[in-house]
Structure formats: structure tokens, C-alpha cells
């Protein structure tokens, strides 16, 4: 690797780089084409910009919203609620998974309940939560938590269960207690699974947050979308959706980055 590369190897590296660049350029072209076509279609009146909006109007909306600071407020609220939701969902879910691992009996008893709760679209519980918790941020966070917690319990419990029996046996021959087995092998060997659950939970919590904001209607990108829809400001709706897509990607990439750092550390 450290020696002079042969010309054959250089050629190989060059080809790899060309392909990589071609992929990146193609991605940018697709994005640009969509926006250009959209803009042109609106200007040429192929579509009604009042209903379909258009890129320049979206940019204008972003500028307007930035000026009064409301863009940052609403984006910040959504991100904040999502982070609280998925962190609490992951932590609480992992904790419940520990309890299930601890008591095989409880796990067997609760199994059908978890299966049903997992299958149930949790967003259907929105109105109930709104009534019980009230029209506050609390409701939104509970929605986000509810969406992520069941998947977390199932995934993390499964990962605990699939911990290598021989590793557990090895610790048992040293006389390990159940707490020691959990601390020394079951939990540490499940950490990659817990982090990948975190990645799933970012997306799920965001669904919970947006549905929660639809219902609570006080702040956040979900609120902007529902408000924009109600007053027929499609520019606002489209803008919010685009910002939401960017925020979601950002959060997902952050967790993926943490995961990569963590895997490297081990």
C-alpha cells in the first residue's frame, strides 16, 4: 500500500474516482432538474403556482420567515421535540427491554400485548393523548415517545436474547450473577443494536412529532404545514416540507455519524 503504485493500480483508483464523481454529479443534476422544471412549469402556466407553489416563491417564503425569526423558532421546536422524543423512547424502551430480559415469565406474558401495540398505528392514539395530556408540548413528546418505544423494546429485547449463550456460560462458570451477566456481556454486546435502533427512532419520533403538532397546533413545522393548508398558503406548506426534509436528514446523519464514531472506537 505504501510503495509506489503500479500504473495498473493508479488506473483502478482513477476509474473508481470517476465513477464516484459521476454519482455525485448525477444526484445534483436530478435535484436541479426537478426545481428547474418546477419553476419553468409554474412560469409557463402549465401548473397553477397558487396550488403547486414554485421554487422562487419557496425561496421568498424562506427569506420572509427568516426575517421575523419564525423559521428558526418552528424548526427548532420540531427538532427539540424530536430529540427529546427519540432519546426518551430509546432510553425507556431499553430499560423495559432489560426488565423483560430479566424476567422470562414477564416477557412471555407481555408478548402478545407488545405484538398488538407494535401493529397498532400509534398515531390513532393522538386524540386520546391530546385529551389526557392537554394541548401542550407534552402531548407532542408523548406521541414521539409512543411511536419509538415499542420498536425499541422489541429490537433491544431481541438483541439481548440473541446474546451468545456460550459467552453467558463462560461468565457463569466464573460464578457471575444475573446483574453481572447483564453488565458485562448482554448489555455491551447489544450496544450496536441500540444505536441502530436510535437511527430508526429518529424517523419514527419525527412522525410522532409532526402528527402531534398537527393536533396541538401551536408551533413547529407540523403546525406550519397544517396552518398553511388551512389558509391555502401552499408556499408555506411546501417550504415547511422542504425544511422538514432537511432537518430529518440532518438528524439521521448525526446519529449515523455517532454510530460510525462508536463502531470505530470499539
Amino acid at each position: 500500500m505504501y510503495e509506489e503504485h503500479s500504473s495498473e493500480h493508479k488506473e483502478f483508483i482513477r476509474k473508481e474516482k470517476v465513477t464516484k464523481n459521476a454519482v455525485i454529479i448525477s444526484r445534483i443534476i436530478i435535484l436541479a432538474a426537478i426545481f428547474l422544471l418546477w419553476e419553468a412549469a409554474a412560469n409557463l402556466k402549465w401548473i397553477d403556482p397558487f396550488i403547486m407553489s414554485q421554487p422562487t416563491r419557496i425561496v421568498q417564503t424562506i427569506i420572509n420567515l427568516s426575517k421575523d425569526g419564525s423559521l428558526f423558532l418552528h424548526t427548532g421546536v420540531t427538532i427539540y421535540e424530536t430529540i427529546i422524543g427519540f432519546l426518551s423512547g430509546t432510553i425507556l424502551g431499553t430499560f423495559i427491554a432489560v426488565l423483560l430480559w430479566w424476567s422470562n415469565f414477564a416477557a412471555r406474558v407481555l408478548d402478545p400485548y407488545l405484538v398488538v401495540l407494535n401493529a397498532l398505528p400509534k398515531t390513532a392514539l393522538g386524540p386520546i393523548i391530546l385529551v389526557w395530556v392537554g394541548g401542550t408540548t407534552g402531548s407532542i413528546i408523548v406521541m414521539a415517545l409512543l411511536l419509538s418505544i415499542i420498536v425499541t423494546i422489541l429490537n433491544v429485547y431481541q438483541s439481548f436474547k440473541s446474546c451468545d449463550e456460550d459467552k453467558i456460560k463462560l461468565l457463569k462458570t466464573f460464578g457471575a450473577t444475573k446483574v453481572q451477566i447483564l453488565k458485562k456481556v448482554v448489555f455491551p454486546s447489544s450496544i450496536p443494536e441500540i444505536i441502530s435502533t436510535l437511527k430508526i427512532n429518529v424517523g419514527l419520533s419525527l412522525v410522532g412529532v409532526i402528527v402531534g403538532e398537527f393536533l396541538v397546533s401551536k408551533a413547529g413545522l407540523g403546525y406550519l404545514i397544517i396552518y398553511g393548508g388551512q389558509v391555502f398558503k401552499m408556499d408555506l406548506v411546501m417550504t415547511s416540507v422542504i425544511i422538514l426534509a432537511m432537518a430529518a436528514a440532518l438528524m439521521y446523519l448525526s446519529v449515523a455519524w455517532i454510530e460510525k464514531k462508536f463502531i470505530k472506537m470499539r
Partner: protein
Amino acid sequence: MDKVVELKNVTMNYHTLDGETQAIKNLSLDIRRGEFVSIVGPSGCGKSTLLSLISGLIKSSTGEILINNEPVKGLSRNVGYMPQRDHLFEWLTILRNTIIGLEIQKKLNKDTMRGAEKLLEEYGLGEFKHYYPKQLSGGMRQRAALIRTLAVNPEILLLDEPFSSLDYQTRLAISEEIWLIIKKEKKTAILVTHDIAEAVSMSDRIIVLTRRPGEVKSEHDIQLTTCENKTPIICREAPEFRIYFNMIWKELDVHV
């Protein structure tokens, strides 16, 4: 005769909803202090069950197991167990891996820590103690696994096909090394294996088990004429090696 391990008429049944399986039937054997005994037998003859019984991980259905003339009740602290794969924890350094038994038994202090480090140094892992398992070769990992077992200073070592996950060359080399370590530390060892050659080259005695339910089929005292400092690899050159090999092969009565 100084018996370390004694099994008297041990029977072990496993229960599942589908029925009852007799893994071991009426098995009796003695292991003498300092002996290296191999247990060979057809697949599924309850060899590993036997080790689990001796270590106290599971309780026999009937019969009695004595270690140093005391019945095994629960886990025995005199026994060190070495599994089929090294099972080093990937997230811990070699040193942290080797002291895990001490940590669990709450015996980790300056002296025992020093003891573990000394073992690592003595057996060529001193400079690797802060490495992670995946940075080590299969043979080195296996040695680290043995040191993890030795760190809690057990009297008896139970080796459950400890070389089966290694390739052939590594397997020969590491079985030689591990044998030397065991002899040097003056441990009693019980090795469970499929490999007849490995058993003949390493053992003082070989116990052949029957097909399930496992019973003792025969016992062989291995006496090989080799030079003074015999080791497993030298033993393979002994003229009697082949004779023992063939005898045990026939007794295993393998049909495929």
C-alpha cells in the same frame, strides 16, 4: 491414588416438551491430580454435558459428582472452563478480558492484577495487553482465553474442544503451547475433543464414550516411547501413536 474429580453413576436427562433425552447414563470415572485426560466419543454423546456437570453449571438427574471428595453443589470455584471459541469480548482490551473472572468473583486487587499481567507476559502477550482481541491472531486469542481461565487460579481445567475453531496448522501449534502452559502451571485438565490424534498426543489417559446415552466404553492409558521432554508434537512421532489412534478409531465405530 489422589482423586480430584469423581463421578459415581451419573445420569443426566434433558427435558423438552417433545420428550426426554438421556444424554449420559450411569457414568462413573475418576480423574487423578495433575492428570491430562481426554474424553472422546461420537457427536452428541454428552461430552459437553459432562463438562457442564463437573463445573456445576447443571445438576445431574441421579448420581454423585465429587471434587476433592466434596460433592459438587452449585458452581465449583476449583474449576476453570475453556469454551469452544475464545469468546474474548471484542469491546475490552486483552488485559481487561483476562481479568474478567477476577472482576466477577470480586477478587480483583493489586496482587491478582499483577498475577494476570505476569501470566500475559510469561506467555508472550505482555506487549499486547492493551490491544483489542480483533487485532490478535487466532492462536494469540486462544492463549489469552486460557490466561483468562488461569487468572482465577482453578485447580482443574475443563477444555471443551478449545481448538475446534482454529485452522489445522494453528491448531497443532496452539495445542502444543496450551499443553505446555497447563503442565507448567501443574493443572489437572479434562479435554473434550473429536480429534483422536489430538487426544492421543496430549493426554495421559483417554476415556472413550459410547453413543448417546453416553457411557464409558473404554479407557486407555497412553504410554508413548519418546525422549524425555515429550510434548504433543513430539508424541505424534512415537511408534505407538498410530496403534492408539487406530484402536480408538475402531472403538468410536463411526458410520456415515
